[in-house]
C-alpha cells in the first residue's frame, strides 16, 4: 500500500466523485417522480368520463356499530373518477327512524359526492314516512333535496310541500333533522289544518 500524499489525494477525489454521483442520480429520480405524478394528475384531469357503470343495484350501508344505516337502490349508477362521485338514475333510499318507522325517499336522479356524505336528490323528490300508532302518514315533496346521511339531515332551497296527518305545510327552503324530528321552513311558511276526521290527501 503506498502511503503518502498521492493516496490521500486519490481518496479525496473518490469521495467527491461518489457525492457528485449520488446528487446527480438523486435529482434525476426526483425529476422523474415529479413528472410522473404530474402526468397522472393530468391524466385524471382529462378523464371526466366515467370509469365504471353498475345497473339495477342494491347498496347497503352499515353504521359503525354494525346496525343498518340505509339501503339504496337504483336502475343505474355511473362513477366519475375525477371527483370520485356517482350519478344514480331512479334512486330509492330506505331507512328507519328512531321510532322504527320506515322512511323512503325517491327521485328521478341523485348525485352522490364527498365520499357518500352528500346525496343531491333531484327532479320529483318524494319522501314518505309510514304512519305510526300516534301519527298519520308523512309525505314531503320537492324538486331538490340535499341529504347528509351521516347527520340524518335534509335541506332544500326550493319549494317543499309536506302532508302530515291532518295538515298540509308548504314554503320555500327547509331543513329537516330526522334524529330530532324537527322541521324548519325558511320562507313563506304556510300550514292548513283540516278539521279532525277530514284530511286533505
Amino acid at each position: 500500500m503506498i502511503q503518502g500524499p498521492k493516496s490521500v489525494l486519490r481518496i479525496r477525489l473518490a469521495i467527491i466523485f461518489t457525492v457528485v454521483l449520488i446528487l446527480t442520480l438523486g435529482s434525476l429520480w426526483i425529476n422523474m417522480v415529479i413528472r410522473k405524478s404530474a402526468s397522472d394528475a393530468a391524466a385524471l384531469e382529462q378523464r371526466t368520463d366515467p370509469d365504471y357503470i353498475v345497473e339495477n343495484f342494491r347498496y347497503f350501508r352499515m353504521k359503525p356499530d354494525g346496525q343498518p344505516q340505509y339501503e339504496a337502490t337504483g336502475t343505474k349508477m355511473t362513477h366519475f373518477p375525477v371527483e370520485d362521485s356517482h350519478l344514480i338514475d331512479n334512486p330509492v333510499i330506505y331507512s328507519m327512524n328512531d321510532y322504527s318507522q320506515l322512511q323512503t325517499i325517491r327521485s328521478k336522479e341523485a348525485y352522490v359526492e364527498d365520499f357518500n356524505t352528500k346525496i343531491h336528490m333531484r327532479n320529483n323528490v318524494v319522501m314518505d314516512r309510514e304512519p305510526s300508532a300516534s301519527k298519520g302518514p308523512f309525505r314531503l315533496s320537492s324538486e331538490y333535496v340535499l341529504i347528509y346521511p351521516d347527520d340524518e339531515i335534509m335541506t332544500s332551497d326550493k319549494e317543499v310541500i309536506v302532508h302530515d296527518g291532518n295538515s298540509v305545510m308548504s314554503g320555500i327552503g327547509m331543513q329537516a333533522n330526522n334524529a330530532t324530528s324537527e322541521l324548519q321552513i325558511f320562507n313563506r311558511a304556510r300550514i292548513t289544518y283540516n278539521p279532525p276526521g277530514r284530511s286533505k290527501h
Partner: protein
Amino acid sequence: EKADADKPTNIEADQMFSDDVKQITTFTGNVVVTKGTLLIKAGKAVIVEDPEGYQFITLYAAPGKLASLRQKQDSGPDTWLEGYGEKIEYDNKNEIAKFFTRARVKRLQGSKVTDDVTGEYISYNAKTEYYNVYNTSEGVSKPGAGRVKAVIQPREKKSNK
C-alpha cells in the same frame, strides 16, 4: 260565526319551526291565521296540537303592536267582533279566544261600534258570542287590581208592526 267551526285553519308566516316529538309548531314574522271569517294577526304564533288533531294557538304581538282578532257574528247582519291584546290564546276546539294585557274587544255593526270593552283579560266564546272581562290577567277579578271599562251602545228597538 258558527259556519267557521267546520272550516280548515290556515296559518301563514315568514318562517316556521316544527318539533314533531313535542307536537309544537312555531311561526314567526307577519303571522296570519284564517278560519272561515275568523282572522287573527300577530308577530309570533305557537301551536300545540292535541292527539285528536285540534290546535291550541298562542299568539304574541309584534314589538310595539297588539295582536288582533276579527270574526263575523251571527247575531245580526254585518255584525263583527274585533279583539286586541299583547297576547291572544285561541282554542280551536272550543272556539274560545282569550285576550291578555291591554285587552280590548269591540263589537261593530257595519262600521258603527256597539260595544267597546277594555280590561286586563277578556275571554270571548265564539260559539255563544259571549265575552267576560276581568281586571287581572289570571282571569279572576280582584278589588283594587286593574280597571275594567265597558261602553255598550243602546240597541235599536225592533219596530213591532
